[in-house]
């Protein structure tokens, strides 16, 4: 878990570095969300359960099985980018092989998909659970309501995870909703809503584990709200100085989920400073190698523009 959190952070830092070098036109950062993503992603079974992420979910797709190399293929919009072959902006995840459902840029459109997949999984008699992630801004969308409503009516095997970082780009939560907790909205759909500290990976894990077990047992959905913070602007094209103070951002970093998890691991004697340093060093070397490999991969052929509008036959 710790290594995955570190990997996500290092992918972020490298992506911004590449952005400044002019090699990556667009970056969607994850930093600050590693705890809630790793905690809520971990209880699902890669290769079996289904992942319906949104664009900030670097750590979710790492858990699902996407490699840093594949993530950087997407960042560089390479032909072999598993999500879209360089068609979509980076961080618009998708892989049929890994059970990561392709998503778009409009917000919350994936939420009804998660409900539909859960319906199909149950209809087929499988014990698949669907995880569906989004930010707090998404909960203002009609599609979000429609997805949760349908899932609640039919007690579908899906877990909804809100990564609440308090800002939808620039709009702060008090202008997004009149309530303190997104989780309260679950009551309107007839299933539990749970608030967790999104910067405490183990709390997120415990909440998700219970929700996944509940879903798998046929008892229906759960809405988990993980309170967290994003350390970078919304994207590389955003300037967050216009809507939040530097003091607020620096204050939030005192609650860094990676630092907190490292403290827990050392306190519990699971790791020590040396082994933590080793994780960072190994991961950094690994990520850097994979960046180089991805950078050297081929770009999409311009002539491929017209492909895959319709079915072209089984591969």
């Amino acid at each position, binding site marked *: 878990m710790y290594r995955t959190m570190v990997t996500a952070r290092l992918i972020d830092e490298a992506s911004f570095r590449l952005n400044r070098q002019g090699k990556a036109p667009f970056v969607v950062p994850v930093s600050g969300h590693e705890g809630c993503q790793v905690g809520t992603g971990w209880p699902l079974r890669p290769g079996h359960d289904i992942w319906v992420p949104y664009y900030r979910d670097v750590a979710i797709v790492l858990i699902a099985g996407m490699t840093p190399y594949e993530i950087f293929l997407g960042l560089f919009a390479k032909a072999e980018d598993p999500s879209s072959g360089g068609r979509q902006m980076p961080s618009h995840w998708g892989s049929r092989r890994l059970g990561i459902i*392709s998503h778009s840029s409009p917000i919350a*459109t994936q939420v009804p998909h998660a409900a539909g997949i859960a319906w199909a999984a149950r209809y087929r008699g499988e014990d698949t659970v669907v995880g569906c992630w989004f930010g707090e801004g998404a909960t203002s969308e009609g599609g979000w309501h429609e997805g949760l409503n349908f899932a609640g009516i039919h007690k579908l095997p899906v877990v909804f995870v809100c990564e609440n970082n308090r800002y939808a780009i620039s709009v702060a939560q008090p202008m997004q909703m009149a309530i303190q907790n997104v989780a309260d909205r679950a009551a309107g759909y007839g299933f539990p809503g749970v608030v967790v500290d999104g910067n405490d990976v183990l709390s997120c894990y415990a909440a998700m584990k219970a929700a996944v077990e509940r879903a798998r047992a046929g008892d229906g959905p759960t809405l988990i709200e993980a309170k967290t913070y994003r350390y970078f602007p919304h994207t590389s094209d955003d300037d967050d100085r216009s809507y939040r103070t530097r003091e607020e951002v620096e204050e939030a970093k005192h609650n860094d989920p990676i630092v907190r998890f490292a403290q827990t691991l050392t306190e519990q004697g699971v790791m020590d400073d040396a082994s933590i340093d080793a994780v960072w060093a190994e991961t950094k070397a690994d990520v850097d190698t994979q960046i180089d490999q991805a950078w050297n991969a081929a770009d999409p052929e311009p002539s491929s523009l017209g492909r895959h509008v319709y079915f072209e036959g089984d591969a």
Partner: protein
Amino acid sequence: MTEKNVVTAIHDTLHEQMAADDRVVVLGEDIATRGGVFRVTQGFLDEFGQDRVIDTPLAEGGIIGFAVGMALYGLVPVAEIEFADFIHPAYDQMVSEVSRMRYRSNGDFGLPMVVRAPWGGGVHGALYHSQSIEATYGHIPGIKVVVPGTPYDASGMLRAAIKDPDPVLFLEHKRTYRLIKGEVPDEPFEVPIGKADVKREGSDLTAIAYGLSLHLCLEAAARLQEEQGISVEVVDVRTISPLDTETILASVVKTGKALVVYEDNRTYGAGAEIAATIAEEALFDLDAPVVRMGGPDVPAMGFATSLEHAFMPNADTVAERMLELARF
């Protein structure tokens, strides 16, 4: 062969497909307990059960979004939008999700799904139960749009739509539901998507239409043949997207004159694309300018009979334009 109307042909075909393949599920508003407001899914709930015949909440974006999820996970959903007029809340799902899933995933994901929607006027449907939506979605690559106008075509094209690995918007003109009857084979057959059909052969001019307008053209053509000796060829477009330009152009090249009839607002309607294609590809075969007959450019048709009639084409007005064109 059995004589059926359009709505019975659709009911019977959908029933047959559900009986043959348990991946096929239907979902929409009032489709289960009520059997659909037009009775297309009458009796389905009792026979196939609530796991396959799903009364959804009143949420069109959700209906399409749930269908997307089902199609992503091994089912073949046939979603019903109760009236085509109510599909607009689902525009985001249709355009951002349904049409682009295959393209944006570079062919990794596909959506074998059908969206059925009753469209068109002539039933006192007023502004919100009469609309034409074919041009809106014909403009969106990635979704196939079909507009069968006869019981035979409705049955054959519904089979083709359910079998299609890509999403199909299946538009059923609601005035034709019980008005138009025809012979339908008892054994399963398919009518290919993307193929127009010459419904009446002729030599003096070509009328190109679909849905209810097709039948107005056929009636007007029969009348002109009988009363004036004018021979009109009538092409049924059947598929809005992908458009079968080959069949349309072959007919226009043969007759040298083209009348395009559609019920939608004239400006930017599907007929505009057909007229533009003819102008682009067959100009030197034309003996007269292409004529477009579409609805007036007002927001929608009115409820009053007089207002509805003023909006809709009818066999008289179509025959007049045919005669003018024949005499050009």
